[in-house]
Every structure is written in structure tokens, then in C-alpha cells.
């Protein structure tokens, strides 16, 4: 396994949803959700398709204003204007411009998403090496396979450290080796005091509280 540099632990961070209600179109998908995630904790959201997993994640990332209730991100004591500013969001599409090379995309996101005071993460090439695809650095993303594009998206999480990771079905398009790398990444992040909220069908190899949409309580 490639060696992973020890990451500085994150300061005290909490992600709090209180009475969160999200609407998509005119359907009420998430209703009255409450949870409080602290350092080193993960929340895995499961449930059949169409029960609002992605909507919940987009609501937590601040792309979707809540119909009722609030999402609060606390970072080192004071409240951030939105959880999104503390979070890396990985959706179905990875946010890479197809015409640009993987390195150019990652350089851009490194300067765009860097949070002051958290130090600089890995360089694009180091991040890509850790994800096992060093050879794609100089290639336009359009040339890459779905799995490779996914790994470039995951590399974005390593180049600009942020305490909260919001991952929508992170395992899609990853092969077995890729899934191991992902699980290793998640364990490192939790070990460094990060928080993870992930919507997934296949199980993730991390200790996490379960939230299955449909039934609204949060299982410990």
C-alpha cells in the first residue's frame, strides 16, 4: 500500500441538523431530521432509490435551502455561515473540466477550496499517486475511464483539507482496488478527527451511525 503521510488532526468540528426538512419540487423528502456529528464520527445514509439520500446530502452541503429547520457547521468553536464552507462534496459528477488535464483540475480546486488555517494538503500528483492513478496526471480528463475520473474526484478531497466529507455514493465506478483505497482514505480521515456523511448502497468499511431514510430516527 502506498504510505500515507500523517495528517494534522482537525480542530473541534460539529455538524448539527436540527428539525431539518427538505423539499424537492413539491415532494417532502426529508422531514424533521435531527443529528449531531462530532469529530471522528461518520453517518451512513441508506435507503431505496428516490427516498431523498442525494437531496439530504445536497441540503447538508448547502446547495438546497431547507424548507424548515437548520444545518449548522461549528468549526473551532464559532459557527460557519453554512456547513458547505467546511465540507468537501462529492456528487455523481466529479467537477472536473473534461478538456483540462487531471493535474490542472486539481490545481484549480486546490486554490479554490483551500481553507485558511488548515494547511495545504497533498499536491495533485501526490494525491493521484495515493489513489493509484499517477499516470493520468498529464492527461485530459476526457480521455479517462469512469473509474479513473472517480479517483480524480476523490483526489480532490486530499489536496485541500476540509473537516467534513459529504459523499454521494462514493463507491460507484470504483474497482476492488479503488474501494480499498477509498476505505483507507475514510479511515484516515476519521482518525484525523474528520467527519463523514455518506450515502451508499454497498457497505463502507468504517464504524458509522446508520440513518435509513424512510424511518426517521437515527440509529446509534
Amino acid at each position, binding site marked *: 500500500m502506498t504510505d500515507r503521510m500523517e495528517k494534522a488532526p482537525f480542530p473541534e468540528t460539529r455538524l448539527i441538523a436540527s428539525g431539518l426538512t427538505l423539499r424537492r419540487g413539491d415532494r417532502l423528502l426529508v422531514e424533521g431530521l435531527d443529528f449531531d456529528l462530532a469529530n471522528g464520527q461518520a453517518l451512513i445514509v441508506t435507503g431505496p432509490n428516490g427516498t431523498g439520500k442525494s437531496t439530504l446530502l445536497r441540503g447538508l452541503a448547502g446547495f438546497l435551502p431547507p424548507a424548515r429547520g437548520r444545518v449548522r457547521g461549528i468549526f473551532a468553536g464559532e459557527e460557519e455561515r453554512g456547513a458547505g464552507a467546511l465540507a468537501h462534496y462529492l456528487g455523481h459528477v466529479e467537477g472536473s473540466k*473534461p*478538456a483540462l*488535464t487531471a493535474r490542472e483540475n486539481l490545481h484549480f480546486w486546490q486554490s479554490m477550496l483551500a481553507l485558511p488555517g488548515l494547511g495545504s494538503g497533498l499536491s495533485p*500528483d501526490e494525491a493521484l499517486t495515493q489513489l*493509484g*492513478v*499517477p*499516470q*493520468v*496526471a*498529464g*492527461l*485530459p480528463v*476526457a*480521455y*479517462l*475511464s469512469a473509474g*479513473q475520473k472517480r479517483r480524480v474526484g476523490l483526489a480532490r478531497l486530499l489536496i485541500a483539507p476540509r473537516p467534513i466529507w459529504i459523499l454521494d455514493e462514493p463507491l460507484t465506478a470504483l474497482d476492488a482496488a479503488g474501494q480499498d483505497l477509498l476505505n483507507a482514505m475514510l479511515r484516515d480521515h476519521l482518525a484525523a478527527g474528520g467527519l463523514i456523511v455518506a450515502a451508499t448502497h454497498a457497505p463502507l468499511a468504517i464504524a458509522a451511525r446508520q440513518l435509513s431514510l424512510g424511518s426517521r430516527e437515527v440509529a446509534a
Partner: protein
Amino acid sequence: MLKYANPTFFLGLAGRLLPWLAGATALTLAIGMWGAFFYAPADYQQGQTVRIMYIHVPSAWLAMFCYATMAASALGTLVWRHPLADAAQKAAAPIGAVFTFVCLVTGSLWGKPMWGTWWVWDARLTSVLVLFVIYLGLIALWQTIEDSSRAARAAAILTLVGVINLPIIKFSVDWWNTLHQPASVFRMDGPTIAPSMLWPLLVMGIAFTLLFTTLHVMSTRNEILRRRLRRLAIQAAAGEAQARPAHRLSTSESAP
């Protein structure tokens, strides 16, 4: 162009052919230029400015000749699906655009002393201008569609549609020109050309054709190498076990 079996054979052939082609071009150009400047007499009406004709008229011929080559390649692409035809067609477009541009600029420079304005909507010049825009459209089409085989088929269809439309455009522009017959339009090529002016013009025509063929063969070779490079890059990406370290690849998607 179409009889070459496969790109690799063409590369070898191009390598051997090019020095001769370049030599022949240089030779005929030299003779043509000498003829144009020293042998041909000045025109009794326009004086020396007629010498611009020795660049203007051949470049107009080449603009047409290049489009005909592209139409032939377009057939190769669509009918026989020949990979070489894709490359030949894409390689010809920028060259055709440059020749058409030269034709337009020299036409405008030739017209200025006689009509006092840089541009006159003369029937022939206007048709060449329309052809110029068609060339630019084809180049833009290649630059926008990334997947090269799809772009080649799209461009082939547009080229063939263009072939049918060019005579129609030519006829309608002529009719449009006669409809609005401005008072002082000077006939471009004047009365029948004296023999002493004709052969330099023909030699320049041949020189330009050779020049076009040389550039076209070189440009087609570039296109083949560019596709091979892209294939190797993708293979390098796929094969994780590549021992070679990753390196900065300065490909631009589909440079002309």
C-alpha cells in the same frame, strides 16, 4: 490519396515523397515569380498592379482545388470509411482557409488602386468570401467535436453539402451582382490575357498546386501522428503498470 493501404504505409511514402515535392515546388515557384516580375509586361490599363494577379488568381484556383480535395476525402470517409481520408480531409481545411484568405487580401489590395475602396462586393470576390466562411465553419466543427471519427463524418457530410451548394452560391451571387449593377465595377480579369502574361500565370498555378500538395501531405502526416499520440496517451492511462513516469503532455484537443 485513397489508394494508400494504411496510415503507416502512407507515413513511409510521405517521408520519401516530401523532399521531391518540396524541391519541385521551390523550382516552379522560382520560375513563376521570375516570369511574373521580369518577363510579363505591365498591363496597358492598370500598369504594374496587374502583377498582383500572379498571386491572386492562383490562390483562388487553389481555394477551389483544396475544397475539391476535401470533397474527395469526404467521399473516402463516408463511402469507404478510410481512416486516411479522415486525416486528409481535416488536414486540408486550414490550408484551404489560408489560400482563400490570401486570395481575398490580394484581391482587396488589387482593387484599392482602381476603385479607391478596400473592398468591393464584386461577384467573384464575394463568392470567395462565402467559401472562406465555409472553410472556417469546417475548422470550427473539427475543433468542437472531440471524438475524431465522429467529427470526420460530420465534416464529410458538411463538405459534400458544400460541394453541391458552391455552384448555387456562385450563380446567385452573380445574379445578385448583376441585379445591383453598381456603376463602376471593373471586370476583374480584363480583356483576354496576352500570351506573355499567360504562361507565368500558369506556371504560378502549377507552383501553387505543388505547394498545396506538399503542405497537405505534411499536414496529413501530422494528423496521423497526432491520433497515434492520443491513442498512446490513452493506452498509457489505461495500463497502470506503465513503468514510464507520467509526463506533461501538451496536447491541445484537436489543433488544425
